[in-house]
């Protein structure tokens, strides 16, 4: 099982270590540093590294490497999933997960880690339960604790731990009972030079914020549940009812949680809401290149596209760019060669464009590679897959809750090749 955890920052310092079994010397991380050095970028450090006596499994998030040390055959996905859970928990506890924040809260971090694993076995990873065991630090609580001498460690067994619904604590009370569901879809797509779709898929999630008194039992039904053929559920969802009736029936956790995530695959037709017209050309003879991009709406079901940003990693040979946008602002970083253009909202009557020239290093040959354009955008009140919630019902409690459902479509990894 998981032996130890080391937190390493991008400059290669170990700033926290935690051992769940015997202490493993931190020199084991030398193998990690070697791999880190070999990889050109932090993202490219391989997640599984073997050393003579241990295996190092790592995830890289928030510019921190979380390196777990294991000694025996353990499912690597189990370890990596757990590490991601650790990061999520820190984020949940402290708002952000960064080196200074972890250092500032080192004792809480240590206590939380101790609660999460015992002898390398996961113990409590649900943030609901953890927060009952170790209360997250808030300014108010710190002040109160200093005055009253009370602690931020809960001294009662979390109620949910052993019930049939371990994700929900008992005795929840609210004056305003409300349940909000956000249907958020991200489009991952690769568009080729000519504008046709190479691959496109939708990663959707339904995130919920449920603040309901007591033990509510909810059912959520869809207009078109057939769309959801590849789904992952929160443990609270009753799988049997989904299988038989295509209805989501569940007792929700208290607060924020991800009810389900789904995947609409490339085989079903995925509507592409934007197009990019581009003309990026280098000439063999001159050191000047032409650059022209226009962005426009495609299949948007009448909704407007907002928050558009365009970014592109330009070839190394590009020295500077002299561009004029029809709207928004643009920057080009001559060191990283990253061009980004903050477009804003697309007005279908007057399409935004960015035109100009690029100057190349004098004497350098024409770059081999073509830059890929990365697109970000948002469309409110639209789930691009066409998924629609039919109704939400509550059983088990008498009051009438306030219900709300919001749809949004975003670009995920949306790439246009040139």
């Amino acid at each position, binding site marked *: 099982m998981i032996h130890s955890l080391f937190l390493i920052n991008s400059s290669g310092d170990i700033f926290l270590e935690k051992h769940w079994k015997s202490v493993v010397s931190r020199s084991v991380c030398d193998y990690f540093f070697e791999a880190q050095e070999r990889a050109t970028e932090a993202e490219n450090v391989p*997640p599984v590294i073997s050393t003579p006596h241990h295996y190092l499994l790592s995830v*890289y998030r928030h510019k921190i490497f979380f390196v777990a040390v294991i000694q025996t055959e353990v499912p690597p996905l*189990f370890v990596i999933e757990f590490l991601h859970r650790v990061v999520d928990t820190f984020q949940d506890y402290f708002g952000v997960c960064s080196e200074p924040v972890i250092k500032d809260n080192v004792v809480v971090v240590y206590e939380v880690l101790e609660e999460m694993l015992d002898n390398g*076995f996961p113990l409590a*990873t649900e943030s609901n339960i953890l927060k009952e065991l170790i209360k997250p630090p808030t300014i108010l609580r710190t002040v109160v604790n200093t005055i009253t001498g009370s*602690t931020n460690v809960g001294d009662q067994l979390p109620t949910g731990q052993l019930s049939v619904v371990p994700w929900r604590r008992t005795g929840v009370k609210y004056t305003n009972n409300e349940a909000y569901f956000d249907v958020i879809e991200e489009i991952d797509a690769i568009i*080729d030079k000519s504008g046709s779709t190479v691959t496109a898929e939708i990663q959707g999630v339904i995130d919920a914020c449920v603040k309901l008194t007591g033990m509510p039992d909810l059912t959520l039904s869809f207009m078109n549940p057939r769309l959801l053929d590849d789904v992952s559920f929160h443990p609270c969802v009753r799988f049997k009812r989904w299988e038989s009736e295509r209805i989501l029936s569940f007792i929700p956790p208290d607060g924020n949680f991800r009810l389900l995530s789904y995947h609409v695959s490339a085989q079903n037709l995925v509507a592409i809401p934007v197009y990019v017209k581009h003309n990026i050309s280098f000439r063999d003879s001159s050191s000047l290149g032409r650059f022209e991009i226009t962005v426009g709406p495609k299949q948007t079901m009448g909704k407007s596209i907002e928050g558009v940003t365009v970014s592109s990693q330009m070839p190394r040979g590009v020295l500077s760019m002299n561009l004029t946008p029809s709207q928004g602002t643009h920057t080009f970083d001559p060191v990283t060669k990253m061009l980004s253009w903050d477009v804003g909202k697309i007005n279908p009557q007057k399409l935004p464009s960015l035109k100009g020239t690029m100057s190349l290093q004098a004497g350098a040959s024409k770059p081999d590679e073509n830059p890929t354009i*990365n697109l970000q955008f948002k469309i409110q009140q639209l789930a691009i897959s066409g998924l629609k919630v039919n109704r939400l019902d509550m059983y088990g409690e008498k009051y009438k809750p306030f219900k709300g459902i919001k749809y949004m479509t975003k670009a995920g990894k949306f790439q246009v090749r040139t």
Partner: protein
Amino acid sequence: MTDSKYFTTTKKGEIFELKAELNSDKKEKKKEAVKKVIASMTVGKDVSALFPDVVNCMQTDNLELKKLVYLYLMNYAKSQPDMAIMAVNTFVKDCEDPNPLIRALAVRTMGCIRVDKITEYLCEPLRKCLKDEDPYVRKTAAVCVAKLHDINAQLVEDQGFLDTLKDLISDSNPMVVANAVAALSEIAESHPSSNLLDLNPQSINKLLTALNECTEWGQIFILDCLANYTPKDDREAQSICERVTPRLSHANSAVVLSAVKVLMKFMEMLSKDLDYYGTLLKKLAPPLVTLLSAEPELQYVALRNINLIVQKRPEILKHEMKVFFVKYNDPIYVKLEKLDIMIRLASQANIAQVLAELKEYATEVDVDFVRKAVRAIGRCAIKVEQSAERCVSTLLDLIQTKVNYVVQEAIVVIKDIFRKYPNKYESVIATLCENLDSLDEPEARAAMIWIVGEYAERIDNADELLESFLEGFHDESTQVQLQLLTAIVKLFLKKPTETQELVQQVLSLATQDSDNPDLRDRGYIYWRLLSTDPVAAKEVVLAEKPLISEETDLIEPTLLDELICYIGTLASVYHKPPSAFVEGGRGVVHKSLPPRTASSESTESPETAPAGAPPGEQLDVIPTQGDLLGDLLNLDLGPPVSGPPLATSSVQMGAVDLLGSGLDSLIGASNFVSPPAAAVPANLGAPMGSGLSDLFDLTSGVGTLSGSYVAPKAVWLPAMKAKGLEISGTFTRQVGSISMDLQLTNKALQVMTDFAIQFNRNSFGLAPAAPLQVHAPLSPNQTVEISLPLNTVGSVMKMEPLNNLQVAVKNNIDVFYFSTLYPLHILFVEDGKMDRQMFLATWKDIPNENEAQFQIRDCPLNAAVPEVPSTGGVPARVPGL
């Protein structure tokens, strides 16, 4: 106010200051001090000097303080064992606390303190906690047994904790069940023989029930445990599969992959005609695809596993090619894995898409990735015949880009395409030749030279091209040198008149100016061939080559089957069985897929070949363990390119000279000195076995050995080493024929079929005269006796000791190797007659210094034998081939 204040130090000395604070009367100050100590500990500072002071704070009703002290204890108890005893009382008391949280905390912490003296005190509280009324305490105690086992395994067994733990599998609370399974699995891993997880249909049922209710982590442990179970028939397998399938929709990717493992394994038992089989296949695809939208680290592990799944059951993901398309900002380790899977999924249906993608990748920035993409195009050409033409034109387009490393990589793969489709795409050679100058990597140069040599007759200036390479011969890498040597010899054999000078030049460079033994030997071999028998040389060097196999990179089927059982583990990431990398090899149990049983009546063995390939082709796969093992197997796989022509050469020696005056003059030329080291005996081709056995005839005539002596059977291959197959045997000689009497016993739980046997080359050319005939499948606990006839016409290689025989036995499970010593007398002929002249000639052949003289007294024979010639000289004459 943040915890960073705990790191500030004062001038007086931190430890001193902390000591004072720890002994303070004020609770609040104490707690702050302990926090400071913990903070120092987390960054690796040594605060063990404060041990007694911290332990003093343990007696408190403040839970946070207690927890902090416990944290400290776990870290430092080992270094201060005597002091740690002070804590025992508090622990024992806490184990009786009315608050279950505190009881659990105490037993949990005690287990983490790896001090023998403390563990003694742990037993009683632990026993109580294992039976505690509160499930939270029980589940904590279950884990504690695993901890204790790690510290003192004997103690755990003596105290009977293992049985208690086994009982917990039937606990009413699913979390307790999950933790008990996890603990037992961990213990079982260090004691593979203990058979702790005794799985039977009842316990499986309990696990499946707990599976639905326990936490995600518990589900992983239970699923991994289920995967070790072998259902008794296909109906049981199906019902387990049905209950495991819902896990595929879990948000935790580790749960999903563990479920995939169970399904992949049990599917093996289901008949393909079953409707359910098809349903299951369909259900497996979406969760695997979803894994690819997770974080890159998870994607990587998933991709490594998908790589195995695709090889085992390509039908699952055959329509999902697009999800493996590479995004330009994927981490490199994800990109490379995706590329690999793309090629595995490539088929005629999707090849156009794949090629378009690969071409796109070949223009990316990352050099490693670009190279692999170019290589992938070549692999597609070899895999999908219909696409070869398109692949070649894509490669040519890429060569036109003139990007140096792209060109080189393209040339390397075009060479492979030529090897797969000879005489089909030679039109592109001209384009390749244009890029000759830009090649600076050995592999690309070697590939180009190979192409020129292979198609020398169609390239007008082949001699000029090769000559240009020859200039810097000594600076080239060995790979290029060897290739250049071969290519020039090929050229010479094709165009003898114009290239004599060139071939002499390269031969002398290779043999006289090089100290690389491989190069020198190959040079001599060519030289010898050319000088003695040009016809043979032509037959050898220009022999028709076997086409390269379609997929040389597939994992060996037996290994693949084993790896399928390890889906989701490190083994699946490394694509190696755990025995290959788990430390010390402890706890390694070979797993294998269950055989198909019950209702399926087809006699085919459990499908070992990838579904795409007909069974006969599975041997094309190049074994990954490239040692002796592979060598043994390859004996009859590789076409005997050098064998037959060599044999004919002795017959035709100097008889025909097809090359006409070309070679005559070459030999006549004074500088063509016969290489001195190449004093190969002229009777190289003659079978050595015959001469030897003649000699032994002599001794058998003299001695009293009868042909009928048979040694008792000895165990040659214990079942433990051969996945349950035990082989014992002996050698006999009867009426002039040698045989190997084998007794095969199946001690495994599954049926064994498809037996085959093979000998490594040995001193006397012993070889099976007939294939190993095991007529019926060998069912568990069955034994068969087989007599395998042998002859002595196999290839010869001197072994140490001389009568050592290395044997490989193959069955449907794996290939096994063992070696045994055969008694020399089995080689002796019965009559022992020898012609007088022949005896004298043989006698004289043995150097004088090999003669030993001694007297035999009390000789039982009637005839007096004054001296016995020692045959000690004989083995020394066996040339090591």
